[in-house]
């Protein structure tokens, strides 16, 4: 373009710009607003539709009755979801108890102790765990973990049977194996978020501790952990939310027994697993399918509550620390886990 033409264009009053191009602006904005509204409509529809379908079960057993009655008996058409809820909670809590310390340990190791050249490969390795789909975890669980751990678990059950919930016979699939696999599955996400949290610890705090003569571990104990505590709690809760909703890996290794087991090595059931197993036959039985949808709704609400709590905890931690973390940057270093979280 000629210099004079450019100059003319640049100095022309803005109002002379092509009206046609301008007109597209509001249309563009409304298109995008429409898409955003679509999401809201979708979720609302989602929720109310499911609630409507679940209504027969809730009205027959009462909302509290459905959730807290300990009797899931398909042939007698009695649907009390307590064994499922308890199974979901047991396996998820086991997952937290096993997974969170390991995840936090790896996060600490990578941020505080690891030589720089190993940081990236180590991070990538942990994240690879997130790339394994749920069904492959189930496959691996059945054919590798269950036989592998049968004898050690039996030994543990026999030696430590004075502990509550430990003892009995180890058959095959059970709560413990399900909890263990869930722990492995939530490891990447809890580790990734913990790592990001720890990365925001101000270096002056750490250096001050070291300057005062603290050992590395003391520095971690006094400078890093207290600062990151809230963020780590948030990470753990996000992991919990994921563990609660996990279906396929659990259905393959929990034993599918609609009773509340007394030991961690007993068979059990979970909300998600019962839906996966029984949906085919329930298609025709209105009460049964309503009960399964009600179970799905309970699951939905449970994950909602846990995730909301997690987000609240994390946001408060961000405010306190003055820095935003969790997913604030997507670079090659950003863990896959924060973006890709399977359930």
């Amino acid at each position, binding site marked *: 373009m000629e210099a004079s033409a450019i100059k003319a264009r640049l100095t022309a009053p803005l109002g002379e710009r092509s009206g046609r191009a301008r007109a597209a602006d509001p249309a563009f904005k409304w298109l995008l607003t429409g898409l955003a509204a679509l999401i809201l409509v979708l979720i609302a529809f989602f929720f109310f539709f499911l609630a409507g379908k679940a209504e027969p079960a809730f009205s027959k057993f009462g909302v509290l009755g459905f959730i807290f009655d300990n*009797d*899931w*008996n*398909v*042939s*007698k058409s009695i649907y009390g979801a307590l064994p499922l809820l308890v199974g979901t909670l047991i396996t998820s809590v086991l997952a937290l108890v096993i997974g969170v310390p390991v995840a936090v340990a790896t996060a600490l190791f990578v941020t505080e102790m690891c030589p720089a050249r190993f940081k990236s490969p180590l991070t990538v390795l942990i994240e690879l765990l997130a790339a394994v789909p749920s069904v492959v975890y189930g496959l691996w669980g*059945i*054919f590798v973990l*269950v*036989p592998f751990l049968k004898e050690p678990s039996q030994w543990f059950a026999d030696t430590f049977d004075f502990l509550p919930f430990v003892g009995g*016979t180890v*058959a*095959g*699939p059970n709560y413990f194996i399900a909890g263990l696999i869930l722990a492995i599955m939530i490891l990447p996400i809890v580790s990734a978020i913990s790592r990001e949290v720890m990365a925001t610890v101000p270096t002056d705090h750490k250096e001050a501790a070291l300057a005062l003569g603290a050992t590395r571990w003391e520095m971690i104990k006094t400078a890093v952990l207290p600062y990151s505590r809230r963020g780590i709690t948030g990470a753990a809760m996000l992991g919990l939310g994921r563990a609660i909703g996990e279906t396929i890996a659990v259905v393959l290794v929990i*034993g*599918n*027994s*609609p*009773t509340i087991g007394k030991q961690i090595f007993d*068979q059990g059931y979970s909300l998600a697993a019962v839906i996966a*197993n*029984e949906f*085919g*036959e*329930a*298609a*025709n*039985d209105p009460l049964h399918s309503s009960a399964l949808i009600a179970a799905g709704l309970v699951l939905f609400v449970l994950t909602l509550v846990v995730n909301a709590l997690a987000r609240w905890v994390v946001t408060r931690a961000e405010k306190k620390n003055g820095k935003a973390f969790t997913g604030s940057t997507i670079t090659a270093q950003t863990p896959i886990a924060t973006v890709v979280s399977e359930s």
Partner: protein
Amino acid sequence: MHRNNLLAIGAAALVSVGFVACGSDDKSSDSGSSTTAGASTPATLNGAGSTFAAPLYSEWGSKLKEQDITVNYQPVGSGAGIAQLAQGTVDFAGSDPSLTPEDVKTLTKGTPVQIPIAFGAITASYNVEGVEAGLKLDGAVLADIFLGTVKKWNDPAIAKLNDGVTLPDTAITVVHRSDSSGTTKGFTQFLAAYSPTWNDGPGVDKDIKWPVGTGAKGNDGVAAAVKQTDGAIGYVEQAYALQNNFTFADVKNKSGAFIAPTLESTTAAGAGIDVPKDLGISVIDSPNPEAYPIASQTFAISYDDLCKAGMSKANAAGYVAFLDYALGEGQNVAKELSYAPLPDDVKTPAQAAVDALTCNGAPAKG
């Protein structure tokens, strides 16, 4: 740099979209009329249900391919099969127990027609180190095992029936079905006949509340679980047990003899039974002294007017051809899988029912 990356990804995406868009391998092509007896027009039948009968359907299906009939059978359990038939998502259901009045109420696309196709044996298969095949068990002991009151293999109740057999001190791991299963109904029917505790407790149904044990999906799932666990016992249809070289029990029948599940004992279970008008037979706990007590029948279930229920004319003709094959040459194939063929007093009314199937009023047979 970015542009090249984008081009590469765009090309890959286009290729996969192209895959989707241009392939139109429409299998549902059917011609309007067929003159030869159902054989020449290609037909595709979608079925679902009993895993008990799944080996049969799959072998028959591969033989019927020569007649241009494709059978897609999903082994999802008898309960889910009937559910899918009621929903209209399949053409026929495979179910071991005969239709209950509740089932009939849900099948609203016409009058349901159940055709018995074979008998099979439900084995009590176990995987116990050191215990050979042919362990003697009866209904009461089996019920106690599945109730969880008999917990170890060397329990006196088992030892009493098995003089001279060394039983290990291994714990019994019960394996049952996690899905709605005709095999479960047959097995629990047998247990309830010999154990009042079972009858009053878990009861008889396709999907019960099991007091103990691990749940697995399908006959194949139970087989897999038994195979992988030392000390396990599960109820598995014989074809699956044979395929995996399982050891299974000799079960005491109504006359007091301990019978092993074989082609002969299964056939004996089907001899001389009552054949009601709707063909809803049952061969569990047969009084015949040579019968295996936990034998079960299995049905192919659809409607009387196939086209009104949703099948195309060609598929209806294909379904009739399929049933003709099942009741004819298929019976020999069944024997190879250790399913017992139907006796004549069952086969004749069954064939009559098949001949009576219609398509929009006219006989469905091509």
